[in-house]
Each structure stands twice: as structure tokens, then as C-alpha cells.
């Protein structure tokens, strides 16, 4: 089943075309990787999908329904949750209270939301930090919190914005495993990531953006051999290292 359909999406900031004529679809249960150099428009795409920006053209359909013009909270309640590349925990609230805010979206009673939040926290492996203020977490922990809060809203589609950037190899491995599990439970994932190891391990398909436009799409193994992708993003080094 088709979960998300993006057609001819466009966003301009003054004279800058941040996203140009971008179309793609996401099937239910899929993991789609969105890669490209810095400034290619990846996060802008997330902001357009999640309602933080209003597109200048094109349409976003989620389960057949247009999301254009909806507020972010309404889009979240429809089942599309996102994380922020620059993590935005509620710093003075505890980890549990942070995740509770997400859980309240589906469980209006605080007691139910707390139970649900605790389950999600165990899920991402933060149970040791449940009562610590979010402002004092390490980078890796904050990334987990960011994912936990989004998961607590029980999304059908999860947008992950560079959740593995800056993590060490062990942490990256654990994160890949977490995303895989979440996906196995039926959550469709759209992944912005620079860590190619994660992109290759997780994505069924990959879309490559450059200057706001799609320059390649396909299976991960094929995309990384595409000369345009190597030229714009990966560089000769990557190709040689893989060979």
C-alpha cells in the first residue's frame, strides 16, 4: 500500500530554490534513505512533510490525504512523526516527562501516557536515565530521546533526521538495530543520514538530492556507483574504499 506520495514539491527561500520539483512515493513498511551533500534540501523536505514549512508548489499526500496547510501537531496526530537534526529535548524536564508529552498524543490520561512512555524508554535503552533531566544527557542519549519522543506518538511514518551523526561505531550499530526493530513492527521510515554504513544497511531504496533536486534514485548498491552521486556527494574516495 502506498503510504506517502510526494508530487512536484517545491520550496523557495527568496531567490534560493531549496527544493525543486521533487516527487517520490513511500510504500507501507519500507525504509527509504534520503541522502545528499549539506545544503541539498533534505531537512527542508522534512520540514515540508511535517508541516513546519508550507510548500510553494506541489502536494504531499499521506494515506491519500493532502497534508498541505495542516499544522505540525495535526500531521503528528495523523501518524507522521519526525525528529529534529538539531535535537530539541525539553531540557528542564526529565527523560520520562519528555517522552510522556509524545505519549499523551494517543493516551490522554496521564497514567496511561506514563506507562506507555516507560515502555518506549526501555525500548530505546534509556531506562537508566528516566528521571534525569534531558538537558544533561550525552549526545547519543539525546539522540535516543529524540527518537523515543517521536515513537511515543505511535507514528505510521517516522522521519529520522541524521540520528546517527556523531555517534561511535558501537552506538551506530545499536541505532541501526533499533531502527530495524521499529520498522519490523510496522513503522515506515524515511531516513536522512550521512552515515553511509547505516544508509546501506537499512534502506531498501535511496533518493539522492543535490541543490534541491533529485539526481538519483534506486537500490542502495546501484546508487553508490552512480557517477553523478559520486561526483556530487560520495567522492572518489568512497568508491575506492568500497572497491
Amino acid at each position: 500500500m502506498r503510504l506517502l506520495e510526494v508530487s512536484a514539491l517545491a520550496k523557495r527561500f527568496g531567490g534560493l530554490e531549496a527544493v525543486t520539483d521533487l516527487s517520490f512515493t513511500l510504500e507501507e513498511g519500507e525504509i527509504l534513505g534520503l541522502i545528499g551533500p549539506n545544503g541539498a534540501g533534505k531537512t527542508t523536505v522534512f520540514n515540508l512533510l511535517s508541516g513546519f514549512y508550507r510548500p510553494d508548489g506541489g502536494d504531499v499526500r499521506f494515506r491519500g490525504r493532502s497534508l498541505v496547510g495542516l499544522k505540525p501537531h495535526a500531521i503528528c496526530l495523523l501518524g507522521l512523526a519526525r525528529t529534529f537534526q538539531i535535537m530539541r529535548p525539553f531540557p528542564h524536564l526529565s527523560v520520562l516527562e519528555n517522552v510522556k508529552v509524545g505519549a499523551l498524543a494517543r493516551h490522554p490520561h496521564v497514567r496511561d501516557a506514563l506507562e506507555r512512555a516507560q515502555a518506549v524508554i526501555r525500548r530505546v535503552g534509556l531506562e537508566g536515565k528516566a528521571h534525569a533531566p534531558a538537558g544533561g544527557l550525552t549526545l547519543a542519549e539525546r539522540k535516543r530521546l529524540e527518537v523515543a519522543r517521536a515513537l511515543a506518538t505511535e507514528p505510521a511514518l517516522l522521519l529520522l533526521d541524521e540520528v546517527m551523526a556523531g555517534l561511535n561505531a558501537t552506538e551506530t550499530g545499536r541505532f541501526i538495530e533499533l531502527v530495524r526493530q521499529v520498522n519490523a513492527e510496522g513503522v515506515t521510515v524515511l531516513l536522512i543520514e550521512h552515515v553511509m554504513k547505516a544508509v546501506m544497511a537499512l534502506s531498501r531504496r535511496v533518493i539522492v538530492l543535490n541543490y534541491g533536486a533529485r539526481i538519483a534514485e534506486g537500490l542502495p548498491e546501484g546508487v553508490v556507483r552512480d557517477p553523478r552521486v559520486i561526483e556530487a556527494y560520495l567522492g572518489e574516495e568512497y568508491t575506492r574504499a568500497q572497491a
Partner: protein
Amino acid sequence: MTPGRWLAAAALFVLLVLPAVLGTYGLTVFIFIFFYAFLGQAWNIVGGYAGQLSAGHAAFVGVGAYTAAKLAITYGLTPWIGMFVAGMAAALLGLGVAYLGFRFGLRGFYFVLLTVAVAEICRLITLHIDALGGALGLFITFTGNPWMFQFQDSRAHYYIGLALMLLATGVAAGVERSRMGAYLRAIKEDEEAAEALGVNTLRYKMLAMTVSAFLTGMGGTFYAYLIFSLQPAAVFGIPLSVDILLRPVVGGSGTLMGPILGSFILSPLAEVSRAYLSGGAWAGAHLVVYGVLLIGVVLFLPQGAYPYLRRLLARGDAS
């Protein structure tokens, strides 16, 4: 029961029997402590928990005071009912201000300015409405009829003031424990992150403002029947708005005990300095006392007195 609850129960008991030993002056001091704790607690819902700083809450006091007094004077409606009408009038104004401010994304300093402007506009409009007494003000003839919310004995004001303080604290406690409380805190911390997690930030900010304004409007009725005269400058003025928000800020905004503690610190101070420093060359000196205290709090207890006290007590328990 936790030690905190025992302490609260004991304090409540003391407050209930205190009028037996208090003189008239002592009663007056406590009436103002309760009154400002009540207003501070009402402010706390939108200014403390939700972090939307209103510096124009006098607007709601004024609207509430004039509504209840006018209804009683002209239509003979008892303020016992009038105070709820007053609350609704203030809530309506609060809803309007919140919609204007939040719909167009005013935050921080700009929202502060909007609330100040609204209170000033209310003051200027009232100044020019003859039916409300204009610049002279509205005077309530004292009859001493309890049915008309008038009391000979200031112990009545004491207990009503105490009841109002407890009412606002109960409302704030209910907000704190509910989904609304979690959402308001999230909004205070990071509005966009809250939106992304399904929080209708516009709706919850408007709701907080409306509840806060309703309670503050009820407080206006209490004020009208404590003072028996209403002047636009007194009930809509910036000094009153500042008086309201100083209690929770000094005591600890966004905490249940903050506004009460803040009022117990500031209100007696205001009374004393007003009594001793109000004549001649010392006129306005109580504002200096306020100013110095506020600078001290901002410098040394930026979270307010209550969170500091709680940490201190927790340390005592641990040792």
C-alpha cells in the same frame, strides 16, 4: 502523607485559627497576602507553567472589578453571582488577547508588550466611560449586607481571601497533574518540539490564558468589595500588573507553592513599606524596596525562592 503534605496541612490549620488572635492590622496584612497569592497563582497558570509572560494581568482584575460592581450597583445583582460573570468577562478578554498574540506568533518580549498595551487601552477606555464613573471612579455604597458581598468584619474578607487562594491553587494543581500541565511545560521549553509531538500549542496557550483570566477576574470582584472604590489607574494600572507577576517570579514561577511563598515574602513587605515610607519625601520608596528585592532574586535565585528552599530541605533530609 509526605512531609510536605503534613507541612501544608499544619500551615492550613494555623491559617484557619489565626484570625482569633489577629488584630485589624494583622488581618489586613493577611488579606493582601491571600489576595496577591491568589492573583499570582492565576498568573502562574499562563505565565509560570506555560511561560507566556503577561505584564497586563491588571486588565483582568479591572474588567472583573468593574463588571461585578456595575452589575451590583445598576442591576442589583449580588456579587456572589457577579464574580462569575466578572470571571467570564475577563476570560473573554483573555481569549481575545491570547488569540491576537498567539495566532500571529508573538513571543517573549513582544507578547509582554501586547499585554501591557491591552491593560493600558482598558484603562483609557474606562477613563472615558461616564457610566463607569470616568476618571472619578466607581464608588460602592457600603451597606454591610453579606448577601451583597459586603462585610463589617474583616475576618470575612480573611476567610474569603483564603478560600480564593486555595481555589486558585487547586486549579493550578489540577492543571499541573493533567495532560494540560504536561503540554504547557512542553510549550514553555520548546514550542516547535511540542508541536511536532502533537501538541496544539495555539489551543493550549489560549486555554491557559482564558483560565488564568477567569480567576483573575474573580479576584477583581473581591478587590472591588474590599476597597469599595474603583479608579481606572488603580485597577488597570501597570503597578498592579507588576505586583501580580512579582509574587510568582520571586516565589518560583511554574511551581505550585511559588506564588504563595512569593506573596508571603512580598505582600507584608509592601504593606510595611507603604505604611512607613509613604509620606512626603518617602513617597514611592516602597518601589525601591521592591526593586532591590527583585534584583536580588534575579541575581541569586533565578528560579525563585521555592525551588531553592526545596533543594535546601532535600539536602537536609539526605544528611
